[in-house]
């Protein structure tokens, strides 16, 4: 499974929606339930799935899925 697919699976789990399809340009406004509350849950879900940690600053910083993937790659995820 590619990093993209794994990330997509985490999104589907967190938002409990199998129909979510991620693009690098996907932002919070594209996913109905992705509010600030769900964002923290999402970050938690990504951290526990990939076994990495974001900095508190990164939590707030991500603007789209492309950024998120780049950060995961930088942290050694594949």
């Amino acid at each position: 499974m590619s990093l993209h697919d794994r990330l997509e699976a985490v999104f589907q789990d967190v938002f409990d929606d199998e129909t979510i399809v991620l693009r690098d340009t996907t932002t919070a406004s594209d996913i109905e339930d992705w509010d600030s509350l769900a964002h923290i849950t999402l970050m938690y879900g990504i951290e526990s799935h990939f076994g990495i940690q974001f900095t508190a600053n990164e939590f707030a910083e991500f603007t789209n899925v492309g950024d998120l993937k780049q950060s995961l790659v930088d942290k050694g995820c594949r």
Partner: protein
Amino acid sequence: MRVTESAPAQGRSSSEQERALADALGAVHDVELPAPKLSLDVARAASAIGDDELATRWALRVVDADDDYVSWNRAARLIAGLTAPPLPRVAARLALLGTGTTQYLTPLLRLAARRRGIDLAIWEAPFNTYRQVVLDPKSPLYDDEFDIVLLAPDDSAMSLPLFSEQPDAAVEAETERWARLWQTISDRTRARIVQCNIALPPRATFGHLGSRLRGSRQTMAQRLNLRLGELAGEQVSLIDCEGLAALVGKDRWFDDRYRLVAKQAVSLAALPLLARHTAAVVAAELGLAKKCVVVDLDNTLWGGEVGEVGIEGVALGNGPEGEAYSAFQDYLLELTEKGIVFAVCSKNDEELARSMFEHHPDMRLRLRDVAAFAVSWEPKTDGIRRIAESLDLGLDAMVFVDDNPAERELVRSHLPEVEVLTLPDDPAYFARSVADSLLFETGSYTSEDARRVDSYRGRAQSIQLERSATSLDDFYRELDMQAVVAPFDDFHLPRIAQLVGKTNQFNLTTRRHSLATLRDFMEDPSTVTMFARLEDRFTDHGLVAVLIAARHGSILDIDTCLMSCRVIGRTLEHTMLDELVHQATRIGCTTIRGTYLPTDRNGLVADLYRRLGFRPLGATDEATSWELDIGDRPTNEFIGVRTTEKPGVRDVTP
């Protein structure tokens, strides 16, 4: 919610949805406690076809599986999105007053409460307004009739300096602040107050030195928690968050990033644990605590089967295994001391089971600790029902503890009101498993409780059982039992010799043939030999039954017929007879003869031949003999039989 709307949106036909549910159920078939993801798959598939009852049931299983935050959150959302979920029998309203963000905890708390049978409506006070909400007489806290007011502060709510010259006054001032809030709430509402004590962050600035400075913040904070407990008394319930943080590990409980980005003092990873414990305390306040623990004997209170190995042979008190069972008994004994009623439900010889309690030197639990004693060979569902009746307790007050997954499944499916624990394999973790269930969290401890327990003590009532045929037949069918029946072979001979050498209870003649004699039987063309292996949905029991019969003309005479007690009450004896009849017909016999030689252990099978349809032939003090004329007879419908076995299949039964 998306959950319910998304399925039709995908354009799935109803037959596709049915199939999705069948697939999801297939993946959890035979699994006692499925991974949360699999339970959620079932729940989601069930909600797609509108079966809200099934969806709820499976979503709630997530709570039992583990404390994974993402799964809990999904389960909570899923249930919240159902149009008509079944409502638990108790409804309660709770006001949640926190010092930080409460929105992460709320759905998990509702989920955990529902698992405990409570439909919990939660009102959240606005962010960090717990003082205003309490003090303002016009606040929404006093609009509604709340049953519970939950005060959930984190350490940021404490104002204690790094060091105080007057630590007693500082601690008292902090304590007073909470006590005044409690007083105000109880003056204005009839709600029960539940207070979280303060989880103390690790890495105190004063380090080890701080623990011997009365004025250090860490010492003062510890005393604050103690003082909260003292002042709470009977009026306020406490949730020991400091203890929970230690349980899960403070580095897991505290994650300062969440404070920074979400004003959330408890990390998301620890929230399911906090929710479960809070729900348990709320359940106790609402009178939903369990009152009675019903416990199996063999391999639950001690290691091994007492009917086979005798009182001297069980693992108890010595060695790692024996000490694990002793520790579990110690824990159960402590439960009785705090007011939980202890009852025994076991398939066993009653006299032998009683003498374990009376005579084994390492038993911690004695007959005086036992309120009801349901020991027989009948189904445990009947035993539990009778225990409930005799103690005048509801089935929903009972918790069943048994090492055998098949018994647990039987009770789960036929007595859904009874809470059934999934015990781990290792007895070292039995006590922990019971404790972690939080089912015996009680709201108070008074002299009344101690007296109530005394009133049950020493009863050790014998519970007489009758067969309830309907549930038993269902049980057998649900077990999906399969037997392999085959003549003796070299490969299985050692295990056969072992069974012949040690089986006591289900043994008609107790003839201890040697390995060499058994081999002679195997090679003798005029002797019919057979063994049976049995497996069911849950377990492969291995080789568990042995039968030897010698041919004398048209009569086939049973020399040995025995069965391991782990499969007694599974109808395997009927299948063995079916096969013997088949063999007898094949070699031209018309009659089967059986003999019962009584011993002080095998009273269980005194009546076996009568039950199998034999007619009595004669009786002396030493033996009874029986005969069966071979004719058309119904065969056992509960066990599927394979009469050959792939060569080389290893029998790993010890």
